[in-house]
C-alpha cells in the first residue's frame, strides 16, 4: 500500500516535465521564426535560446530530483 502511494507520488513529481517540454517547444519555435526573419542574427538568437531553454528545463530537473528522492530515500 505505502509503496504504491510512493510510486504515485514519484510519477506526479515527474509530471513537471510536461510544462518544461511545452515551454522548450515554444522557445524553439519562436527562435526558428526569428532566424527565418533575420538570418544574420542567428548566433545571438541561438545563445539566448540556449539560456532560456536551460532555465525552462530546470523545472523538469527539480521534479526529477524530487521523484528520485521519493523513490530512493523514503
Amino acid at each position, binding site marked *: 500500500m505505502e509503496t504504491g502511494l510512493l510510486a504515485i507520488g514519484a510519477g506526479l513529481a515527474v509530471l513537471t516535465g510536461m510544462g518544461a517540454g511545452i515551454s522548450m517547444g515554444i522557445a524553439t519555435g519562436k527562435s526558428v521564426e526569428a532566424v527565418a526573419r533575420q538570418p544574420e542574427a542567428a548566433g545571438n538568437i541561438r545563445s539566448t535560446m*540556449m*539560456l532560456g531553454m536551460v532555465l525552462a*528545463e530546470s523545472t523538469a*530537473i527539480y521534479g526529477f*530530483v524530487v521523484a*528520485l*528522492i521519493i523513490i530512493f530515500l523514503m
Partner: protein
Amino acid sequence: MELEITPEAFYIGDVNVGQSVVVAWGVMAVLIVLAIAVKIKSRNFTEVPKGLQNLLELGVETIQKYSKTEVGSVWEEIAPYCATIGLYIFGCCMVELIGIRAPTTDLSMTLALGLGTFFWINYMGFRKKGFFGRLGHYVKPIPIIPILTDVAVPISMACRLYGNILAGMIVMELIYGALQYFAVAIPAALSLYFNFFDSAIQAYIFITLTLSYVSEAIE
C-alpha cells in the same frame, strides 16, 4: 539492476570520504598534470602559432572573448575561474566513459561548485559596488526577497547539474539493463548523447550562468 543515488563509501583509515571524492581527486590530478605539461611545453611557443599552440590559443581566446561579452570590465578575473570550472565539470563527467561513477552525480560536489559561484557573485558585487552599495541591493524593492533569490542561486545550479548528469547515468543504466548480453554497439551510440554531449552542454551552461549572475551583480 543495482542503482543507488547516494555514492558508495570509501574508507581511508577510519574516515568515510566517499567514492566520489576519491574519483574527483583523480580527475584533479590528471588536470594538474596536463596543466604542468602545457606550461612546460609553452616555453618554446613562438610568435607565429603552429600545431598544439594553435589549439590552445583558440581555446583561451574563446573563453576570454566570451567572458568579455558577458561581464565586460572584470573579465580578466573571471575568465580563469570559468575555464577551470568548465574543464573540471567536463573531466568529472568523462570519467563515466571508463565505467566509473561520475563525481558530479553526488549532490555534495555540485553544491560545492554552486557555492563557489555564489562566492564569486558576492565577491564581485562587493568589490565593484562597495559594501553599502551591495547591501543596498538586498533591500531595494522589498526587503528579504532579494536574499531569498540569491540563496536560491547555488541550490538551483547544484540541482541542475546533479539532475542532468544523474538522469543521463540512469538512462544509460536502464539501456544496459534492458539489452542484457546484447549490449554491444547501441549503448556506445547513445552514450555519445547522454554522457558526452550532455556533459559538454552542462559545463557550458554552468559557465554561462556564472557569467550572467556576475554581470547582474556588478551592473
